[in-house]
């Protein structure tokens, strides 16, 4: 096949307008495509990050005591005993909030005494704590990598009033938070201080866990306090054997709805559904970007297709003449493919500059990581392919024009 790029190019230069418009469409499509795919990729990665927990097999159930005689401590004791006895349940715990739910308890730990004035006041909510008993780690499915779990005798009873909450003698902390607090050396056994400068010892370190706010910068700065949660609201997390979640959920909801007439069940929900809600904006953003990008790509393809079709239709005599003087069918196909390749390439060159510009602007404006060049390379290859694909049908049709057209049209 003889590509003859130079004369195709000179002929194209004499018919610029349509070509420039289509090239601009391609440029814009490329700039948006590359950056949108990059953003979507980041969001998808974010949603797919490991949470450290057995998310698929955990559900949460919330109850509120309302009656005069409601006994929070007794309710927790009875409910937990029941939950841990249900067949198919791995373990259960009462806590203050649901991980990944977007609502939780924040406070900060400091490696030095001095409380608010320790010089270590990180931003608000820097540490995210959960109150649990010795069943907490197993219920969440997190992995202890150093130290030990809480012992039953360490667990403080549910406070009767928030004013009298003591800090804890001991805490279990995520590896990420421990490294942040003690960048040098082994954090196990070290003392941390709360906002009132009250001390606690780090007795265990867990591998990894996302807390209540997975979309913040450091969702893995989590620690556990050995204490039953304050009432009259109680939130239980229940971990089931794989495949048992729905059955256990239904059974538990039914039982707990009637087991204690001093309280009501507020809701029963899977941890997965909390996670899905928390990442809703990421998913919506992804869907929006994919839709917009697909539309732009469709418009660019239609532009290429339309221009190629127009060119074929307005050049039937020229095509017939080329055939008459010796062009084979594939030479005609090649002509239109080369022509469209030139237009696409012009658009791609401009589009690369635009993509980098948009990427730079986004990274500045929204503190996003800089555009990964692999995405640009992928976008360029993709648009080249799309351009060739969109021009293929008109080019094939051009090749079917009879050489007799040369003598039959004047």
């Amino acid at each position, binding site marked *: 096949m*003889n590509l*003859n790029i130079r*004369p195709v190019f*000179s*002929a*194209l230069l*004499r*018919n610029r307008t349509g070509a420039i418009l289509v090239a601009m469409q391609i440029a814009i499509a490329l700039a948006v495509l590359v950056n949108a795919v990059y953003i979507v990729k980041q969001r998808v990665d974010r949603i797919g990050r490991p949470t450290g927990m057995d998310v698929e097999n955990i559900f949460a159930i919330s109850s509120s005591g309302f009656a005069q005689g409601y006994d929070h401590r007794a309710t927790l004791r009875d409910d937990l005993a029941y939950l841990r006895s249900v067949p198919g349940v791995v373990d259960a715990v009462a806590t203050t909030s649901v991980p990944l739910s977007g609502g939780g308890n924040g406070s900060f730990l400091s490696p030095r005494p001095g409380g608010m004035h320790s010089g270590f006041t990180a931003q608000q909510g820097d540490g995210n704590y959960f109150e649990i008993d010795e069943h907490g780690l197993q219920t969440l499915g997190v992995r202890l990598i150093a130290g030990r779990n809480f012992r039953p005798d360490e667990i403080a009873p549910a406070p009767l009033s928030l004013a009298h909450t003591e800090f804890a003698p001991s805490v279990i902390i995520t590896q990420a938070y421990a490294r942040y607090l003690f960048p040098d050396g082994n954090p196990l056994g070290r003392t941390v201080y709360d906002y009132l400068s009250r001390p606690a010892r780090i007795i265990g370190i867990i591998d990894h866990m996302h807390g209540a706010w997975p979309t913040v910068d450091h969702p893995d700065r989590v620690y556990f306090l050995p204490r039953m949660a304050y009432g009259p609201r109680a939130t239980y997390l229940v971990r089931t054997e794989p495949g048992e979640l729905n059955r256990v959920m239904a059974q538990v909801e039914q039982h707990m709805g009637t087991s204690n007439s001093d309280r009501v069940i507020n809701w029963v929900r899977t941890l997965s559904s909390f996670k899905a809600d928390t990442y809703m904006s990421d998913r919506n953003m992804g869907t929006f970007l994919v839709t917009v990008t697909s539309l732009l790509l469709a418009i660019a393809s239609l532009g290429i297709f339309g221009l190629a079709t127009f060119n074929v239709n307005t050049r039937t*005599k*020229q095509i017939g*003449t*080329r*055939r*008459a*003087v*010796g*062009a*084979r*069918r594939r*030479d005609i196909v090649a002509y239109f493919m080369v022509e469209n390749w030139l237009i696409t390439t012009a658009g791609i060159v401009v589009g690369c500059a635009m993509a980098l510009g948009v990427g730079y602007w986004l990274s500045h404006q929204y503190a996003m990581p800089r555009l990964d060049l692999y995405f640009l390379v992928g976008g360029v290859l993709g648009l080249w392919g799309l351009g060739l694909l969109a021009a293929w049908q008109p080019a094939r049709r051009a090749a079917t024009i*009879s*050489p*007799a057209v*040369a*003598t*039959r*049209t*004047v």
Partner: protein
Amino acid sequence: MLDMQHISKVYRSDLVETHALRDFSLTVHAGEFVAVTGPSGSGKTTFLNVAGLLETFHTGRYLLDGSDVSKLSDDERSRLRNEKIGFIFQGFNLIPDLDIYDNVDVPLRYRRMNRAERHERITSALELVGLASRMHHMPSQLSGGQQQRAAIARALAGDPKFLLADEPTGNLDSLMARQVLDLLEQINEMGTTIIMVTHDLELARRAHRNVHIVDGQISDFRAYEPLPEAVAAAGTIGR
């Protein structure tokens, strides 16, 4: 030599069948200059298209330069058109977006000649037709006669054995028409076989031989001029 025997060509549409060529036989010898005349719709263009491998035919036998062309593939027909046949059209058919030089270059590129040889052929063809100084003009910047001469240069650059012209002067005034015919005569004298369809009987008379087509068949032919010796020696001219 171009040898057609009992060729038929039928155009079919939903309603009608047009027998554009019927039992059509004609032999054109190397070096001849044949003018084809006939009423409108008689089949002149059809004959030229079949002869030039632009269209296929249904029955009969056609030997072009000694070889049977009825069973050739589309690609082989393209190659033969490129190498053996030059076309001249009533409407010139120059490519409007290419300058004269590039227009003459079109068939040579399809022959995949190297750049130096193409350049050599383009310039000598343009010199022959007197357009060497206009090679970088666009077709729209030339007069009709100049455009037709550029088209003749394109047809000649590939050094074809046959030049097929369908009313090459149909769009030209009589002065420009005569110049074009002078050029064709000059080319014929250099050895190229020419078949020219024309309505102009005065121009037709300048050919060696006149073939008159009526209703898809040859009704009459006569020689106006003594034939070139080579042709006369080759034998009879005829159906």
